[in-house]
């Protein structure tokens, strides 16, 4: 069974007298553990698709099956619960809480979803994930004290804290330079490989799409091509081949104040 099955999905917006059709009968299956990259021109409906996939929005018509269950008619609260448990979001602009430590940012989803984890366990989970994305020494840093790439890594840790099935990333490297983009893609590839997480990534850069297992092209709210990636790029290998940055100073772990 596919993790995601979209059947004849339509989404239209009314703006005054005009009706904008953002999705016009889009169908798509996403298998568990795949890394799907969605490409398409600006205004083709990628973000709209992402909002529906992420249960932030409801389709005007059509069906969305998540793990075999039709979630297209779910009400706000049930969607909020599913978002909390099954879906992680990574945004182009990171969307971290300002003036809030990396640790607390990562813990945020754990405050919701009707489950009261003891603070110690929340900290432990968040810390584990920050270590996994290479920020073990930056737990107490606020977003203002982190580079763009580091902020995006915090955001990825946040998206993972509830152990979701699905990670949705809308242009996650859109605000990053190419070197940092490779680092982010390395983390995403590792997540798919090591944790079996399903990633759906939106991008308009074809070379970024080649890190995925499959490229889906959207045009005018429909899927116009859907092809497996032939020569898949390996972000880890690419990063290893890059010349080291002279300014790269990775602080010793446990240098910044680490809470239990």
């Amino acid at each position: 069974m596919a993790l995601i099955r979209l059947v004849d999905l339509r989404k239209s917006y009314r703006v005054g007298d005009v009706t904008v059709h953002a999705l016009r009968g889009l169908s798509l299956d996403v298998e568990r553990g795949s890394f799907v990259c969605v490409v398409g021109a600006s205004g083709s409906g990628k973000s709209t698709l992402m909002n529906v996939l992420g249960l932030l929005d409801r389709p005007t018509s059509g069906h969305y099956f998540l793990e075999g269950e039709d979630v297209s008619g779910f009400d706000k609260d049930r969607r909020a619960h599913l978002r909390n448990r099954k879906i992680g979001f990574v945004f182009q602009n990171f969307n971290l809480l300002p003036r809030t430590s990396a640790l607390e940012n990562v813990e945020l989803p754990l405050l919701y979803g009707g489950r009261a984890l003891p603070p110690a366990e929340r900290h432990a989970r968040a810390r584990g994930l920050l270590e996994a994305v290479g920020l073990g020494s930056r737990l107490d840093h606020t977003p203002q004290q982190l580079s763009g790439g580091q902020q995006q890594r915090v955001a990825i840790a946040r998206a993972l804290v509830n152990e979701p099935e699905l990670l949705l990333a809308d242009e996650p490297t859109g605000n990053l330079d190419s070197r940092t983009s490779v680092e982010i893609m390395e983390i995403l590839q590792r997540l798919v490989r090591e944790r079996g997480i399903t990633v759906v990534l939106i991008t308009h850069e074809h070379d970024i799409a080649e890190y995925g297992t499959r490229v889906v092209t959207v045009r005018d709210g429909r899927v116009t091509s859907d092809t497996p990636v032939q020569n898949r790029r390996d972000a880890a290998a690419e990063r290893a081949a890059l010349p080291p940055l002279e300014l790269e100073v990775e602080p010793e772990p446990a240098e910044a104040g680490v809470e239990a």
Partner: protein
Amino acid sequence: MGGWNILRVALIAIRRNPVRSGLTMLGVIIGVASVIAMVALGSGARASIDEQISSQGVNLIYLSAGSWGRGPGTARGGAGSTTSLTVEDADAVRAQVPLVARVSPGVRGRAQVIAGNQNWNTSIEGGNEEYLEIRSWRVVAGENFTARHVLVADKVCLLGKTVADLLFPGEDPVGQIVRVRNLPFRVIGVLAPKGQGQWGDDQDDIVIAPYTTLQKKLLGITHLNRVTISAVSQDRVEQAAIEITRLMRQRHRITNPDDDDFTVRTVEEMAQTRLDVANTMNSLLMSVASVSLLVGGIGIMNIMLVSVTERTREIGLRLAVGARSRDILSQFLAEAVTLSVFGGLLGIALGIGISETIVRSLGWPMQVTTEAIALAFGFAAAVGVFFGWYPARRAASLDPIDALRYE
């Protein structure tokens, strides 16, 4: 999100903007402090009136000559100015009104009192041997005069504390002679201090003597200014007053109450007037105080609205990671209530401080009661809920996609 986390998140948000939070709270602080101070003023005033009633004697009834001038038939003037009230009236009240316990005929005037080279203008009151008991007044040195003193119009007197201290500083006045309008009176007792009277006058600035002596030897009159009466018990005071009135009308052949040439008043009645004034003043001050609390609430609403707008992206993010509308609602409501409750606590402290300062510097009677504190606190919390509701509602109704996109 559980209760504890809601509070924690609210506290974090409040601490993030300490100056703004402080200014927001200021409105509530001032509102609550003024409510506390105003209620303290009101209950202090009531308590001091109550205290004065009991210090005067709760059973007290005054029968004064003259009426309190209402209507056209009262050209004869105010209470105490006519000569129609007599000792016979007093005797009749004693004999014919069973609800009456004690009766003291009385006259009053002002006089220059001299002792040695000390000289003092004071009020002088005449009564019989029961007068002090009716007024629950004790003698602290020497003795009260007796029925015999009254009968023979003896020139003896009792000094109020103020007069005693002025005329005989550092001396025992008992047994000494004072000259009242050049007439020598022997001081046989000193009265216990009574403090301020109901109109703020000094009740201890007084000389008391047998009324017969004052009538015959000092004032040269035969009528009375007033008769001081005590009822058999506190709950019969009103009935006794009614019967005295009836008797007096009968004796003075008055059919129309507008023609009364006397006035019957109970101490409670007199206090009631002042209580009414105090209450009116108090509600006035209270409404001013409540308005400032209201303004404080509007301040909270204003800041919360700004905060919701500023944090639109944060709200969008929280919704995206699984917050339900009601989680957002409770988060912002908790913030507003925390602000108002903290403001309320600080306001209570400030209100108590203000009350204490006023008591200390101005000597006004003020009473900070636990009820007032509970009331003010409850009000503050209610203000938080009431004025926090709309901004919180607005935050909770945001659409996650729009909120995430908000610039």
